[in-house]
């Protein structure tokens, strides 16, 4: 510590205690929540902001949310007026045009008072399985945000500790999955309360003055370390362009562009050149684009750096209004996270020449939502279900991309099949790696994932994903991963038909939807891949012997399960 008045010990104690408070918020939320998306998949985030609405501490949850939170929470509080909030109050908000993201992500924010003095805010965001709108699970392709579900401007949802029953009923009336959503709202309240109690305990010990002073210091500490990290980045201007494969209404690709300038003033991300916003679900709000840039910058820094305002203040983003990277009212936004996560891939692609060992090749880089619902014949309830499906990770300069994982800002778990089938009228009939889906390379991309759903009853199913035209890019002669396939197999017709990556379909009993997500991009020339690594993939059935021969120039002797060295040498020398 450079400031003589700061006690380094007290500093570390308070810093850890604040992070722990947010971790405990996450535990309370997860354990008491109802929907599979929140309780099992952990599609939520928790954070603490100081009274000046600076981000101070966050739980180790979903980076996408955390990066957007720092925009949304201050805007929501300022819109509502901090002077209108007292002890025990909490406001609810999901307004994309009030600093928010897509409607499913609902934030609950509560001031923390200590002896009648405002000391900060606890905030938690949960992806609700349904918020009304045109399709179950509130995912789907629509023309305007109004069709996507209930829009909640900042409203006082909890008053002096009591949930406002009128508002609660009004909100729930718009929502299909009432029981689960009600449970998830209660869990969010429990989360904020837990956070407030822990924060008060910290102040009990140190007093408000010290608490405030050390929060400043915690932010300054991250600031100093962020500057040190920024110094290490290569100076220059780095650019990349890429595409979302379609917008959900037209087959026209959606262009994304990013320019990253690193100079003595720090890092600036500029998305000028990205397509104008569409009347289609691919628009990202500014908060989402900011979150993408924040994630990318953070991933280039020391893994140990605590993230708070002292870091976010260095995330400079130029995103022209009216583009898919900063849409304006009333553009639909439900697929904004697809755009967001693709920007991550583009940023790393742009930086690859300058930071070849720090980045990875193209990843799944889509949220890949699977949402469905309908009336559960057995219970008579309207149910909704939402999950996102993993895919291949991009290869790195010294290692393969892992198979079947979530990528970038997204790190939600899968829904256990047994839990899903016990609660919803669906049967998962297949969940496995997709062989031969990797992007070939000296280091190969990860394999994509297949998940098949069979519906014993009628249901409405929405795919909100991407990558159905081209797989993730490779780097330095590494090749693309496979593209994704979204297939419908009607019970009445065994032929499988391929659906667009943004589709809602009505299903009849016995119909099957099959996701086969993209593999990750490769890194380096495939013919330089270690032949033993190719053999290992063949032995495990991850790639075929034909693919080993054609894409890697490695001949595998099937009977002995060994590399045929002489044929391999010949194949490789011919290339």
């Amino acid at each position, binding site marked *: *510590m450079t400031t*003589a008045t700061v006690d*380094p*010990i007290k*500093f*570390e*104690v308070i810093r*850890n*205690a604040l992070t*722990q408070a947010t*971790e405990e918020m*996450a*535990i*309370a939320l*997860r*354990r*008491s*929540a*109802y*929907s599979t998306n929140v*309780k*099992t998949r*952990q599609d939520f985030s928790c954070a603490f902001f100081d009274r000046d609405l600076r981000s101070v501490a966050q739980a*180790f*949850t979903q980076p996408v949310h955390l990066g957007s939170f720092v925009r949304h929470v201050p805007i929501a509080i300022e819109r509502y007026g901090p002077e209108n909030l007292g002890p025990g109050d909490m406001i609810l908000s999901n307004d994309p045009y009030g600093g928010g993201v897509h409607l499913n992500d609902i934030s609950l924010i509560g001031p923390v008072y200590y002896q009648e003095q405002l000391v900060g805010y606890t905030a938690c965001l949960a992806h609700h399985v349904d918020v009304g709108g045109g399709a179950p699970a509130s995912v789907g392709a629509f023309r305007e945000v109004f069709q996507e579900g209930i829009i909640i401007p900042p409203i006082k949802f909890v008053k002096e500790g009591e949930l406002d029953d009128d508002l609660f009923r009004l909100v729930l009336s718009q929502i299909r999955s009432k*029981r*689960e959503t009600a*449970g998830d709202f*209660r869990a969010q*309240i*429990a989360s904020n*309360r837990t956070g407030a109690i822990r924060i008060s305990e910290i102040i009990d010990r140190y007093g408000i003055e010290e608490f405030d002073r050390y929060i400043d210091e915690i932010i300054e*500490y991250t600031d100093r*370390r962020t500057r040190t990290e920024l110094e290490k980045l290569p100076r220059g201007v780095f650019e990349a362009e890429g595409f979302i494969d379609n917008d959900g209404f037209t087959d026209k690709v959606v262009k994304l562009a990013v320019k990253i300038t690193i100079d003595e003033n720090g890092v600036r991300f500029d998305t000028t050149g990205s397509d104008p916003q569409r009347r289609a679900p691919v628009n990202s709000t500014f908060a989402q684009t900011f979150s993408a840039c924040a994630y990318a910058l953070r*991933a280039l820094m020391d893994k*140990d750096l605590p993230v708070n305002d002292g870091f976010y203040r260095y995330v400079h983003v130029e995103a022209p209004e009216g583009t898919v990277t900063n849409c304006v009212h009333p553009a639909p936004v439900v697929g904004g996270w697809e755009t967001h996560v693709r920007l991550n891939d583009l940023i*790393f692609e742009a930086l690859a020449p300058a930071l070849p060992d720090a980045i990875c090749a193209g990843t799944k880089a889509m949220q890949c939502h699977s949402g469905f619902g309908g009336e559960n014949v057995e219970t008579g309830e309207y149910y909704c279900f939402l999950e996102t*499906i*993993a895919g291949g990770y991009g290869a790195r300069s010294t*290692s393969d991309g*892992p*198979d079947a*994982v*979530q990528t970038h800002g997204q*790190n939600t*778990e*899968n829904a*256990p*099949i*047994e*839990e899903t*089938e*016990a*609660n919803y009228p669906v*049967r998962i009939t297949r*969940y*496995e*790696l997709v062989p031969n889906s990797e992007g070939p390379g000296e280091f190969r991309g990860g394999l994509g*994932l297949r998940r098949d759903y069979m519906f014993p009853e009628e249901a409405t199913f929405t795919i909100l994903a991407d990558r159905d035209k081209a797989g993730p890019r490779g780097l330095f002669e590494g090749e693309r991963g496979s593209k994704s396939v979204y297939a419908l197999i009607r019970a009445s017709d065994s032929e499988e038909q391929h659906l667009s990556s943004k589709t809602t379909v009505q299903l009849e009993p016995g119909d099957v939807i099959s996701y086969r997500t993209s593999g990750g991009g490769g890194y380096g020339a495939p013919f330089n891949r270690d032949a033993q690594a190719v053999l290992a993939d063949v032995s*495990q059935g991850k790639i075929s012997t034909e693919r080993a021969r054609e894409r890697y120039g490695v001949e595998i002797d099937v009977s002995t399960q060994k590399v045929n060295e002489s044929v391999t040498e010949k194949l490789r020398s011919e290339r």
Partner: protein
Amino acid sequence: MIASTGGRFRIGVDIGGTFTDGTLVDSTTGRVTTSKVLSTPSDPASGFISAVQKLLDIDDAVSPEAVEHVVHATTVATNAIIEGKTAKTAFVTTEGFRDMLEIARQIRPSLYDLQFEKPPPLVPRQLCFEVPERLDAKGQVVTELDESALAQVVDRIAESGVEAVAVCLLHSYRNPDHEQRVGRAIAAKLPDIVISLSSDVVPEFREYLRASTTVINSSVAPIVSSYLSAISEKLRAVNVTCELLVMQSSGGVYPAAAAAENPVFMVESGPAAGAVAAASLGSALGHPDVISFDMGGTTAKASLIRNGQPSITKDYSVGGAAQSGTGAFGGASGYPIRTPVVDLVEIGAGGGSIAWVDSGGALRVGPRSAGADPGPVCYGLGGEEPTITDANLVLGRLDPAYFAGGEMSLNLEAAREAIQTQCADPLGLSIQEAAHGIVEIANTAMVNALRLVSVQRGHDPRDFMLIGFGGAGPAHAVRLAEQAGIPRVLIPLGPGTASALGLLVTDVRMEGSATLIVRSEEIELSRISDEFGRLESAGRDAHRIAASASGEPVFERAVEMRYWGQSFELSVPTPISSTIDQTWLDELIEAFHDAHETAYGFRANDEPVELVNLRLTTIGKIARPEMRRLENVGSDASVASKGERPVYFAENSGEKGIVSTPVYDRKRLPAGAVFSGPAIIEEPDCTTVVHPSWTVKVDDYGNLGIEYDGKL
């Protein structure tokens, strides 16, 4: 009580990273004898038998035939997993789900790390097999098991030369029939290999967690089983022919034969022993609510004990990064198991943890450790980075001339210099301040661990007593208690080997469970009594085999419950009434609402409640050794005085925090002695640091009771 076989001695053996500790209790006199030998990681059985032999050699009265039983805590299973030395294992599952183990939870273990790796699956893909069959969530058959396809799979397993097979079919927790048929088909062809069925090992829903547990069970079974045979043989060779018992992760012991079959229950055998020791000691002294704090050379472990019982969790991963207790993504770096484990938080803070200044100018401690080699700077064995032990030395809390009872002298100057150049100078602090900072920062992490097991679980630390042990525990326990708000500390007699003693105060426990997953308004009460009846009779059988016991087993029953729609259950002990009727159910549900409110701050009286699992624990009680009273009695502590030395206590207003502190020799302290902090109490393998504002009272048995003078 388990009938004595006429033996009067009990032996406990705890194998740690550096030392193997043996403890022998003479149950007629309560006399405790200990032995310490170097661990032998390449062949742990030889360290084990050396420790036993040393105990047997202590005096002629200890005849091998008079040993009643031997209890063992071992990390052999964990080590096999961490070192990737598990047995070659095949995995059989429902068609379409071969990659269940490799996909795991589809998440990354760290958020911002683009270079992360997933842990490799314990079974490689070519040894994962599918059989056509399918049940639905109610356990009804959707697709019959295809016997001819199964026969082919069995042939391929036979060709693969595996030593073990794990079988996990979807929804087998509801209906084990298909799994049992698969198991029988494999056994018929391969009678000598280990076969673990998920419906036997852990019949609970969520397939990946059940499969992971089952695979760990089968893949360590050959290793554990041959290890336990080797030990039994070595024991027989020294004429110890009594039953060998093994510590489970949940704190009970089970017979070696049961451990060989279900080793997944003993994966965290070692750490559990310490918690059990603390629980037993607390109960014996009239403190059923304690927090156990065990700090060694590389890690510190905290766990909470209520009503004399360690709390138990089923959210656990083996071989993962340090568990923060959140059950969040920490688990993605290891292999989850769903068997009960003592709910302990283990953090990388031990005497050898290294202090450093990071690029932002913050003083940090750990997670790197100098371990025993090269060790702290003051050992003079080549360590160059300052550690917690170095800091304690610089603060005067350790005596450089009396380390390891004087067998080793410490280099104070080297420790001072390392702290000065690497910590104090960069931060503009004095050496004392920096050393104090190192200790306090490590304490912060440990206080967090204490809070994770107490406050985070809804328990007020003020209601507990902290029991501090392990080589480094007594030097930190008092300060930690002060920071965590725990007003009472107990440092047991022989804190360095307290864990091994835990092995000898442990009941034989066997866990049974049955899955219900039914809403309370739909439950048939007869189903609950039938299932509990079935579990009880299985428990009785196991008890009979386990302990050759004449005594009656004791049963503990609990129901894991949640609001319908939630995923995390709370375990609720069943009402006392033995008749399972509507009143019983109403009481159970009310107890659940209460537990939920305690845990999460709200109750939902109108929401349907779901009964998920029934749990029944069968306990064969083991007589506790009587504690021996100290013969040396007297209120005057000065008889044990070793003089005074300057020690740094920042909280003291004296000149720059340094205060002349009395030093006592623990073995000369009489029962009944009372003295105030600051004070240092030395014994050969430990130093207890008593801070100002705390008062020590030596109890009748020689334990140090240390209480805060004011209110915390």
